[in-house]
């Protein structure tokens, strides 16, 4: 699973606005800051996006590296293949998650990226939330760096209301983690500081949620997939800082201006799409173009929820710091059972007046993808929503076959078009 698109410069057709500019600056600053991090003064913790413990780790003065995000930034910059090939030479098979290969290849090659050097980890925090590969990946990092690893076991979310025992288990682990950090850093845990950080977190989450909900408007002033992915960076990477919270204020002001001035993602919104799945970062623009060509705007997407379902009302609560962190880790999108994922999508379909669903399966990500075929079947047969399933990879450009994907997307949108024009009996039209 993952995070947010990085420092790629905006291109014509993107919104050339303040949000996008600011996002680029934040990304650059973040990587600049990392370049100087490491060692006892500014120790570095590696963390996974899903169910992460940013707030706690930050309150102990750690800099946080998210290898998933570094990997996707490399992929957007067309730098993933060399890392992946290196990882394959190390012995990682063709079917191993692209993030893992991109990252471990990169690490083995010395950690230098187009944005600067990524520091070595002083601590590995493995939030086992939503993806089994996390455990394997962190194990590999632990062995190659000899760095200490903390495994934060997050049970799978199987009922809407979390089990009491699960929360207890996680809270107990968080306390153990805090004690470990105290020993490691020689600093005492400061609950007030954590609460302060959580307040910033909450402010960012509220802003981000507001932005996402703008997709309900018709026409939508936001692109809830291709644009939102850029805007995921602050919520996932900088959560807990004032910067992140301020960022969404800027973005939301921008969205309001768009609504006022009619500056929309596309001149004409022909199809309102829900997108499910991790994007093909290596061919992000090409993929986006395939939508634009048909006037398809994504008004809601599941992927931006991998860091948490803030738009559904979950927010960190400074009054219940550990409990709310535990609830947060439980509720991230891929940590939810398919039954819950289906339910969420069902609600999105209604709330965002969705016309069609596009599912992008990732060949090397089973966590997200295993079951998307079933989802497709459910959408078409049980929900009556036209749905397209296509497959490529998030990190490995060798698996993005533009001609084939384009052909499928053209056929799909063409058939939607055709169905709108042919007045077929209602029973036949699955929409």
């Amino acid at each position, binding site marked *: 699973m993952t995070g947010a698109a990085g420092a790629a410069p905006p291109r014509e057709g993107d919104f050339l606005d303040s949000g996008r500019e600011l996002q680029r600056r934040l990304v650059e600053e973040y990587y600049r800051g990392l370049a100087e991090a490491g060692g006892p003064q500014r120790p570095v913790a590696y963390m996974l996006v899903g169910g992460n413990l940013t707030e706690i780790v930050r309150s102990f003065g750690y800099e946080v590296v998210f290898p998933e995000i570094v990997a996707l930034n490399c992929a957007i910059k067309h730098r993933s293949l060399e890392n992946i090939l290196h990882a394959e030479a190390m012995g990682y098979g063709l079917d191993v998650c692209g993030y893992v290969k991109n990252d471990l290849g990169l690490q083995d090659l010395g950690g230098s990226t187009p944005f600067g050097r990524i520091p070595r980890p002083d601590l590995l925090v493995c939030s086992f939330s939503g993806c089994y590969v996390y455990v394997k990946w962190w194990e590999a990092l632990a062995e190659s760096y000899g760095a200490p690893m903390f495994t934060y076991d997050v049970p799978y979310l199987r009922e809407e209301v979390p089990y009491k025992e699960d929360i207890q288990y996680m809270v107990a682990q968080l306390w153990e983690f805090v004690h470990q950090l105290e020993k490691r850093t020689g600093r005492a845990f400061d609950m007030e500081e954590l609460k302060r950080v959580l307040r910033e977190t909450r402010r960012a989450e509220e802003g981000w949620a507001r932005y996402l909900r703008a997709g309900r408007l018709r026409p939508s002033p936001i692109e809830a997939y291709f644009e939102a992915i850029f805007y995921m960076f602050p919520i996932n990477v900088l959560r807990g800082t004032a910067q992140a919270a301020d960022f969404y204020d800027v973005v939301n002001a921008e969205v309001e201006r768009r609504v006022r001035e009619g500056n929309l993602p596309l001149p004409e919104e022909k199809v309102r799409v829900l997108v499910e799945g991790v994007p093909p970062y290596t061919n992000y623009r090409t993929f986006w173009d395939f939508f634009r060509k048909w006037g398809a705007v994504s008004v809601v997407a599941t992927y931006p929820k991998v860091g948490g379902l803030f738009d559904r009302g979950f927010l960190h609560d400074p009054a219940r710091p550990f409990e709310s962190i535990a609830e947060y880790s439980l509720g991230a999108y891929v940590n939810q059972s398919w039954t819950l994922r289906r339910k969420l999508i069902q609600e999105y379909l209604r709330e965002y007046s969705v016309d069609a669903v596009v599912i992008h399966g990732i*060949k090397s990500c089973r966590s997200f993808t295993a079951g998307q*075929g079933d989802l497709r079947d459910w959408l078409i047969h049980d929900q009556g929503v036209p749905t397209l399933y296509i497959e490529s990879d998030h990190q490995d450009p060798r698996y993005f076959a533009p001609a084939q994907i384009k052909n499928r997307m053209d056929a799909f949108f063409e058939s939607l078009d055709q169905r709108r024009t042919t007045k077929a009996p209602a029973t036949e039209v699955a929409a």
Partner: protein
Amino acid sequence: MAAPLLTIGERTEEEPAAPSLELSNDLAEFRSAAGVAEMVRLAGEVLGDPTFPVARAWKRAGGRSVATFPVYTPQELIHALGMLPVTVQGGGENLEITHADALLGSFLCSISKSTLEMALTGRLDAFEGFVFPYICDVSRNLEGIFARSLPGKMTHMLHLPQNFGSAATLPFLIAEYRRLLAKLERVAGRAYDPEHLRASLATFNRQRRLVGELADLRRERPADLSLVEMYLLTRLGSTLPRELHIELLERALAELTARHRKPRDALRVVVVGPFCEQPTLDLLSLLEESGCAVVGEEFQMLSRWYGDVPSEGDPLENLARAYLEAPVDIGVRATPTTKEAGILARVERTGAQGVLFLTAKFCEPALEDVVLYRRALEKRNIPYLQMEFEERSTTYEQARLQLETFVESQLFD
């Protein structure tokens, strides 16, 4: 849905929940199996039939059974409620996949597809419920697909914890087992009783001990029990009523102890990887044909996850503790030791001359470990070979070539 208590055979409610073996004639053949060869033949038949004849027979006799996906589920709980636990380990080489492909992506292991195919085509109708342990994302997600595909059946995703260093893990796992128990109780139509679980622990202890003896025998005298024979005899225990399996193993061991075949010259290898999806019997035979003697492997892990589970005290706690403390070192369980130490210890313990990575195609947990293992082996100059397999394959040219080369490279100098 409070179904009446099971009345199988002559068991009364007061007795511990050991399922009766008199349940049907269908299993009579096993009881009268003349010797190891006959048992192996029957095992091949029963295990090669993706419609689960034993579970069907059990159901016909009025019993209920619950299927579990590999690698580990505390089947003792199912047993203690008077039900038949069965490990569903894929559909084997003869199952044709036409439905499951539509619901699963193309880059998934075969076992996930064949398991779903069996469900969609009614082959799993003998089971009342399905448990998927969190061994990987595929198995975990499969639960959600089953929940939609088989709406009338119980499905459960069992969260096997991965934090082995926390004081909170044991209480969590006990709570997790209780949740599973609650669902199982509904399926069984009876309440959990610690006494019954104690009895089940004893039965499973006995079964594990015998399986262990079989493995020891093979390690010491590989010529007397072929890999396929051992595999089938062991795997039989994942589908037969456990009491019947115990009977069979006792007889088999008695016969095998007297066997003395001429030892063969072969390369001693540890096989790493096939802990979940199972290779075909042909591939297993091929290992031996190409000159490998398998002295360590990961098949049928469930039947040897831990040693004896004590029955004094709270049996549920004992069961949870046994899972957590087991020194099992496979790809779907985070271990306290490093992978490097783990593989070297295994090679040393078994006296292996090489390591064979037999990874199920698309099995990510297995694929990721290979790298760490291989690094450790290279440091020590221990030869290894990595191959991928699928449960559905008919040609073995590639596999044969690689195996032969591997053996030749050790034998010629």
